[in-house]
């Protein structure tokens, strides 16, 4: 039974091991086109084609989905089903993330895919903004009806202004969406994908813009508000110092508020793109001024207006934030042991770009991201694996009115860290490491000790056969003391050596103990040093040609038949074994005498 359980456990262990190995051998090919394509010694043009084909096969379904998603999303936005818009946007976002992961996993550096990813990211941003903008537009329509019924002209004016701002924003989004068409459609056509859905989405987008423009025109024409709003007694005017600004330039709004009866007016609120930008104090004569440095405003048209006391509105002015070229400079990297120091600067023609994220790419993969300081400079030390690498810096310009910029590329070689004595000593200088090592070795030593000392249940420990006369091992003595005393009178002095191991025998005694005792007696007689290593047959063959050979072999045969028979030993068989044992022992005693 015990053996069966051992076999079962062993089988389970072997199956587990094989399963673990099989998991590692998911791609058990010793040769694959992918390996061939990157082999240094030769180039297999066929393999290269197949690799490109493999990659395309995995990317194509995603590219196709990403080309179709905007069309479906814009239709849902047009239908004002914002619950489904949120769901579809999340799906679109997930698809974009999948493409990013796939491109990184496949180590793809093809420029088409890189440009497609960028255009797709821009589309995701545009459609998210479009969703927010149109949702707010629908809210404004509801509010307009409510305020019109209530005769609240001030709030109607506010809504008109916000509508004007939203209209311009959506127009800008449409313009940006058209800018992505070239890359998206060209990539789709290159992979022989259907791009009609994407082209259709542009028409749907145009219709949304047209609806908003028409709605805003109606709102203005119905007299909800206008450029010169507010109470006739109040007059609020604003002017922009510069209608076209670029990064790091100041956008300045100057204005004047005239209130009936004179006096110093209260603060005036400045709104940029319908968001309150600041609350500025007015002078004694009612003049005010607001300036803001352009940093994170997106490129395009922006609206600005002022509101006094929540009810007096200025006209809406627009200003354009122009895209400016950014220049990213990366100095030659300084290679130290396993670390590379990257430093450089990010600037425009006129100003430094501060607090901007700069990515460090190693072999096309992002190794680090560093933020520039107020002077546009950056410096970072990054751990790069040993080997040859091509590095460069990249500025994505996601939230800046700047064009993306890449630095020059550098080829660097990071040396293999030489295993030095200092490193080793540094490793062992950590007390935690030493503790772990000592603890692990101690535990394994204890486990090894107990493994060697382990005895199977029922087995009889093997003891040396030679010891001082009359002094068996303490364990043996203890065992003998626990044995029942033999009812047969024996003369201990007759054969001291043999009787020493014979003490306490009685019918029904464990056959294993009888075998062990006989084996020990024979070994002592033959001066055999390792009695524990003898099996019954080996014991029999050891006694070959000796006078007690017959008796010992008969015991071995009976013992094997009964003990290894696999069945419980009956009383008769036990008697047979005991008789054989007694016969063998008597033969041995006779010889010893």
């Amino acid at each position, binding site marked *: 039974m015990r*053996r069966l359980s*051992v*076999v079962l456990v*062993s089988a389970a*262990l*072997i199956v587990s*091991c*094989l399963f673990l*190995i*099989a998991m*590692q*051998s998911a791609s*058990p090919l*010793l040769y694959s086109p992918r390996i061939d394509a990157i082999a240094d010694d030769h180039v297999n043009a066929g393999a290269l084609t197949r690799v490109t084909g493999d990659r395309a096969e995995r990317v194509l379904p995603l590219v196709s989905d990403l080309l179709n998603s905007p069309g479906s999303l814009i239709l849902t936005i047009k239908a004002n089903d914002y619950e489904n818009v949120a769901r579809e946007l999340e799906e679109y976002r997930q698809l974009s993330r999948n493409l990013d992961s796939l491109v990184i996993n496949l180590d793809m550096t093809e420029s088409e895919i890189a440009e497609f990813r960028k255009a797709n990211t821009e589309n995701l941003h545009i459609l998210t903004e479009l969703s927010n903008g149109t949702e707010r537009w629908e809210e404004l329509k509801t509010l307009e009806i409510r305020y019109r019924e209530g005769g609240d002209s001030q709030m109607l004016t506010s809504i008109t202004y916000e509508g004007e701002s939203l209209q311009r924003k959506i127009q800008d989004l449409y313009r940006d969406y058209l800018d992505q068409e070239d890359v998206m459609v060209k990539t789709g056509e290159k992979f022989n994908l259907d791009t009609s859905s994407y082209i259709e989405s542009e028409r749907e987008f145009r219709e949304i813009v047209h609806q908003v423009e028409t709605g805003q025109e109606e709102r203005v024409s119905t007299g909800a508000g206008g450029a010169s709003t507010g109470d006739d007694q109040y007059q609020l005017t604003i002017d922009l110092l510069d209608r076209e600004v670029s990064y790091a330039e100041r956008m300045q709004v100057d204005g004047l508020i005239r209130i009936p009866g004179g006096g110093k007016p209260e603060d005036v609120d400045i709104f940029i793109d319908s968001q309150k930008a600041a609350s500025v104090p007015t002078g004694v004569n009612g003049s005010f001024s607001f300036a803001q440095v352009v940093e994170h405003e997106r490129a395009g048209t922006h609206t600005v207006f002022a509101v006094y006391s929540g009810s007096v509105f200025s006209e809406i002015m627009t200003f354009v934030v122009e895209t400016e070229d950014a220049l990213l400079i990366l100095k030659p990297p300084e290679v130290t042991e396993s670390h590379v120091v990257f430093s450089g600067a990010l600037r425009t023609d006129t100003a430094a770009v501060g607090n901007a994220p700069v990515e460090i790419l190693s072999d096309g993969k992002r190794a680090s991201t560093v933020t520039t300081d107020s002077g546009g400079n950056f410096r970072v030390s990054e751990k790069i694996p040993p080997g040859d690498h091509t590095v460069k810096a990249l500025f994505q310009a996601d939230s800046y009115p700047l064009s993306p910029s890449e630095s020059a590329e550098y080829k660097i070689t990071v040396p293999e860290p030489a295993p030095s004595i200092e490193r080793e000593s540094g*490793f062992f200088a950590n007390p*935690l*490491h030493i503790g*772990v*090592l000592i*603890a*692990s*070795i101690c*535990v*394994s*030593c204890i*486990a*090894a*000790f107990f*493994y*060697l000392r382990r005895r*199977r249940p*029922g*087995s*009889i420990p*093997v003891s040396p056969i030679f010891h001082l006369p009359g002094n068996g091992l303490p364990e043996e003595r203890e065992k003998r003391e626990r044995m029942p005393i033999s009812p047969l009178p024996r003369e201990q002095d007759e054969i001291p050596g043999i009787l020493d191991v014979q003490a306490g025998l009685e019918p029904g005694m464990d056959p*294993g103990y009888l*075998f*062990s005792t006989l084996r020990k007696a024979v070994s002592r007689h033959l001066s055999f040093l*390792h009695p*524990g*290593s*003898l*099996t*019954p047959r*080996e014991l029999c063959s050891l006694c070959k040609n000796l006078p007690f050979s017959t008796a010992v072999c008969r015991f071995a045969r009976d013992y094997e038949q009964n003990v290894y028979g696999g069945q419980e030993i009956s009383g008769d068989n036990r008697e047979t074994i005991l008789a054989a044992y007694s016969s063998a022992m008597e033969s041995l005693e006779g010889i010893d005498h």
Partner: protein
Amino acid sequence: MMKKHLAISTLAAWVILVTGFMILARTMDLEIFFVLWLIGILIIVELVSDQMATPRYLGVLKLVIASGVILFGVIVARKIMEILAQ
């Protein structure tokens, strides 16, 4: 066939099997190979050993296993230190 020969054959087959899979998986890792060999020899010795008799070669094998267990402890310690160093 004697138990000793059967044990040697089984252990050799196990080691060849492990090596073959490692070659197919293109992951020849000496530590994994050692651990799998240790598992194999532990199972084989357990199955071969007798209740009443312990042949000398089994005694030697048990010493080898005990040494393997200590080496296994060193490997575990190394792995723990690698994780701590990360």
